[in-house]
């Protein structure tokens, strides 16, 4: 989140797209409700009418996979109706920049596409520079080569009629939503976008999120209270886990994972990964301090701080690629912690088969999961499986101590309330013991390949690790005296400081502020004394933009920060997300987006598919792309293996999407009787018209088929799902919760037996949310 949960209450309009917040993040509704009570309209964009839609003022039922068509429509509407925040745009974004004269967009493709390689040459996705190297600009935003005019032309095609034809949202409903949300472009008004995996689980997932950024910058909604782009992260600590490098492409603190080809040496890594300007120019300090935390005394300037010890990635290391490597027996062992890929993965027929190609598999979980039991899945002959499986009992969140980081980047400490039962142990215990035992196994080895383990700086005690010591390392300390650094501004790239995760640095200087619990009696809900928000306890990112270029707040009633000329300081309700004494008129004083080299919000920003989000159809779609002749994201590669067939709309004419329910957590809670009684069986939601066509009645058992598999589910026939009117055609949809699997006290078929193994071109996140299927009565 750029903002945080409580801040949602400050919004004047709430756009929920790609999230069923009432069911997946129920407590958020407390804050949404407060905004609603003040008159803020809530717009829910979702294929299905859900518990969130029931509380919303406007429900837009969009066909799965058409988010960019919808968002593009809002972008066009905001520009056409002149609802954009011009002063904000000119001052804080790259809207005035002049783009390379040869930059173009023609029929679904940006300039530079190489048909042979399927990649772009991005040479024209750049700005025209003056003699000083700075981009040429037109602050009036009128120059035809300006980013703003390019943007305006790009989205000119996204008319309300086009939005309706592509998404299936009736034009009047779209216009109602557009009017309600784009009204927040007025100075002093705030609109927030809440999204989750309904946005990201697409082959255009990254561009879906980008489209949110473009709209919010146009409306001046970033950096202000009640605004922002707010990813509703899963579970209690998904934010924390990605902060700590859970993603396959990153190390802790969003430092890029070194790749063999690009980063053979420390010098090449720092050279390639460090921008010349912006806050990321400090990256070498964070990276070297991380190496120092990991290899301690052994990490010295002479040996590149043990950079060579760090494993280097080669090829595609994403989740999808990992399972493909398993299937090909290129990957032989797997440790699964806090995940159940045999239910939650894509194209499960293939992924469960891939698990059977492993030599060994370790699963740590609270219960026997489908992953630990894959060898007994329906249709699998256990005798044919050679994989050795170890199931290790894990402890629950009540049985361990440490921090969790919520979606709003708030780091909050939790205490252990009881000891784990039986042989159950915490994940920290497991990792600590694994490392200590590995170290003992390698003692005496003279082989250089064993040095990374032998030299690993590891001092958290025996058995259960000392979480306080871990927390101190995460904050960072001076190597010489082990004293905590004040925050990451103290970190150095010379080996004199160690820091486990620079973005969190500052949370534990004199005290562990994750334990702080001072609620704010009034103000804007920042609660600066409650927990600690990274970075540096800032609650709203880019908050320089909460004030006008001259330093006066856009909204005097909801001040985040304002410039106090007498004190020559920024003052207000939050910690400045920039230098607190940098005057508005000083050089760089109007650059809120400090992580970017130019300090400006990027309307124009290249991802691999292009600098502006463009609608492409899902990999399985029942219709032609109406916006261009390019049907699918041209940068996405589908593994053409037999197990990954794509369905044709003549055979599989129904659009399917998957989702979660309030009553279940992943696949784990199907062991809990109180939750199982509320949601006891796998079901399929469908509209009345489809049910009538298929002769299906409420409660009937049905079979759902895709090109990759088939499952059984009980029918939930409801008015809440309706067919989409797409360009004159009627397209039916079904919805499938994905919680079920073949173990637990409530068992059922897994929805992901149907989904394709294809991912977003930037992140490889699988396309769970839009695929084709057919339904028939009977099991």
């Amino acid at each position: 989140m750029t903002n945080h949960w409580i801040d949602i209450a400050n919004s004047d309009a709430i756009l929920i797209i790609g999230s069923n917040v009432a069911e997946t993040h129920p407590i958020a509704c407390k804050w949404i409700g407060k905004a609603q009570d003040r008159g803020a309209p809530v717009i829910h964009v979702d294929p299905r009418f859900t518990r969130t839609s029931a509380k919303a003022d406007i429900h837009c039922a969009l066909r799965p996979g058409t988010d960019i068509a919808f968002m593009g429509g809002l972008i066009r509407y905001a520009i056409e109706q002149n609802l954009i925040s011009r002063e904000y745009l000119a001052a804080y974004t790259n809207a005035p920049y002049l783009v390379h004269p040869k930059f173009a967009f023609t029929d679904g493709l940006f300039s530079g596409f190489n048909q042979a390689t399927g990649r772009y040459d991005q040479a024209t996705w750049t700005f025209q520079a003056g003699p000083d190297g700075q981009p040429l600009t037109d602050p009036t935003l009128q120059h035809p080569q300006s980013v703003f005019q390019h943007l305006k032309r790009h989205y000119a095609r996204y008319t309300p009629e086009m939005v309706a034809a592509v998404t299936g949202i009736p034009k009047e409903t779209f216009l109602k939503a557009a009017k309600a949300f784009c009204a927040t472009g007025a100075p002093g008004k705030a609109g927030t976008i809440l999204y989750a995996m309904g946005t990201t689980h697409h082959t255009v997932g990254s561009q879906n999120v980008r489209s949110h950024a473009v709209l919010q910058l146009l409306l001046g909604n970033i950096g202000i209270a009640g605004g922002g782009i707010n990813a509703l992260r899963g579970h209690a600590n998904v934010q924390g886990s990605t902060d700590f490098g859970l993603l396959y492409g990153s190390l802790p603190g969003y430092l890029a994972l070194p790749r063999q080809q690009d980063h053979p040496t420390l010098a090449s890594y720092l050279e390639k990964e460090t921008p010349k300007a912006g806050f990321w120019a400090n990256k070498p300090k964070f990276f070297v301090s991380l190496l120092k935390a990991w290899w301690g005394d052994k990490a010295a300037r002479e040996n590149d701080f043990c950079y060579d010890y760090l494993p280097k990635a080669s090829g595609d290391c994403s989740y999808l690629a990992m399972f493909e490597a398993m299937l090909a027996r290129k990957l032989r062992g797997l440790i699964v912690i806090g995940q159940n890929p045999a239910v939650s993965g894509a194209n499960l027929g293939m992924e469960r088969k891939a698990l059977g190609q492993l030599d060994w598999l370790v699963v740590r979980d609270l219960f026997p999961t489908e992953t630990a039991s894959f060898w007994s899945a329906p249709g699998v002959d256990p005798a044919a499986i050679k994989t050795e499986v170890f199931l290790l009992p894990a402890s629950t969140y009540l049985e361990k101590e440490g921090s969790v980081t919520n979606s709003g980047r708030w780091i909050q400490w939790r205490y252990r309330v009881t000891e784990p039962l039986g042989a159950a142990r915490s994940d920290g215990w497991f990792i600590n013991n694994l490392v200590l035992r590995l170290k003992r196994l390698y003692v005496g080895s003279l082989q250089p390949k064993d040095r990374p383990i032998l030299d690993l700086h590891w001092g958290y005690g025996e058995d259960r690790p000392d979480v306080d010591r871990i927390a101190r390392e995460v904050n960072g300390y001076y190597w010489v005296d082990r004293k905590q650094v004040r925050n990451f501004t103290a970190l150095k790239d010379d080996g004199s400081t160690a820091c486990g995760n620079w973005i969190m640095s500052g949370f534990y200087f004199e005290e562990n502020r994750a334990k702080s619990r001072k609620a704010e009696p009034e103000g804007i809900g920042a609660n600066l004394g409650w927990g600690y928000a990274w970075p540096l306890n800032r609650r709203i990112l880019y908050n320089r933009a909460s004030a006008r270029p001259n330093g006066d707040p856009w909204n005097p009633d909801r001040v985040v920060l304002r410039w106090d000329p007498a004190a020559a300081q920024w003052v207000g309700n939050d910690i400045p997300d920039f230098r607190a004494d940098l005057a508005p008129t000083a050089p760089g004083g109007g650059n809120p987006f400090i992580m970017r080299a130019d300090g400006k919000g990027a309307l124009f920003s290249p991802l691999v598919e292009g600098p502006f989000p463009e609608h492409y159809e899902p990999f399985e779609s029942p219709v032609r792309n109406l916006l261009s002749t390019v049907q699918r994201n041209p940068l996405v590669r589908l593994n053409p293996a037999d197990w990954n067939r794509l369905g044709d709309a003549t055979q599989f004419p129904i659009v399917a999407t998957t989702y979660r329910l309030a009553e279940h957590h992943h696949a784990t809670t199907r062991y809990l009787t109180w939750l199982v009684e509320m949601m006891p069986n796998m079901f399929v939601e469908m509209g009345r018209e489809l049910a009538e066509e298929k002769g299906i009645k409420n409660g009937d058992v049905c079979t759902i088929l895709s090109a990759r598999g088939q499952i059984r589910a009980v029918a939930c026939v409801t008015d809440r799902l309706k067919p989409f009117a797409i360009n004159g055609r009627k397209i039916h949809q079904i919805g499938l919760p994905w919680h079920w699997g073949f173990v637990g006290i409530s068992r059922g078929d897994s929805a992901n037996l149907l989904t394709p193994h294809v991912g977003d071109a930037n992140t490889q996140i699988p396309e769970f949310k839009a695929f084709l299927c057919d339904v028939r009565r009977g099991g």
Partner: protein
Amino acid sequence: MAEMAMLIDVTRCTACRACQVACKEWNRLPGETTSFTGSYQNPPDLSATTWTLVQFREAADGEGLHWRFRKAQCMHCTDAICHAVCPNDAVTKYPEGNVVINQDRCQGCLRCVENCPFQVPHLNPATKKTAKCTGCVDRVMNGLPPACVKTCTSGALQYGSRARLLREARARRDKLFPRGVIYGEREMGGLHVLYLLPGPPARYGLPEGLAGGGALGAALQRMTRFALSGRG
């Protein structure tokens, strides 16, 4: 302790059903064996082991589609019929408002089951006694809110002085829901579970015409059975 009540603000309920689970957890009630029959509502009805339940109702009108949620449970009536008809003096009415069936005294005669205008008490086939929500009498007498209120995620449930909750409910209705209804102010002599409804009680499966007091309500109840178990 003053007269207390629970306010169920339907306008804030998102049907997350944490209240259902919290009730079972605190009161040590077992999960029932259910099956999905085409509605999110499950278990289908209140029972001797399900003391509170969120009901789901789908309806369409000129304004569009509605999915209405209402938490159902014992209303803890002032003129509690269960109390009036119990031949074994098994029902206790507390000054705070709680109406509790004493399991030691209940003989399972079913009179409370047959006469409750809200169809709340149910016979437990295992114990041959009737059971229902106690208003978490063991919690509230010790200064804790009922378990469902404690766990409510969206702020839909509140527990406190009945007079204060009525005042707050009225203020909220007047400001935000001009067509809203406060249910329970006079029904059955006054309920200790109050609802703020954005529309007519019938849309939420709540019987009307019970505001005349206990005797009249009881008579009405004997003549009429209300369909209370909305599902959809």
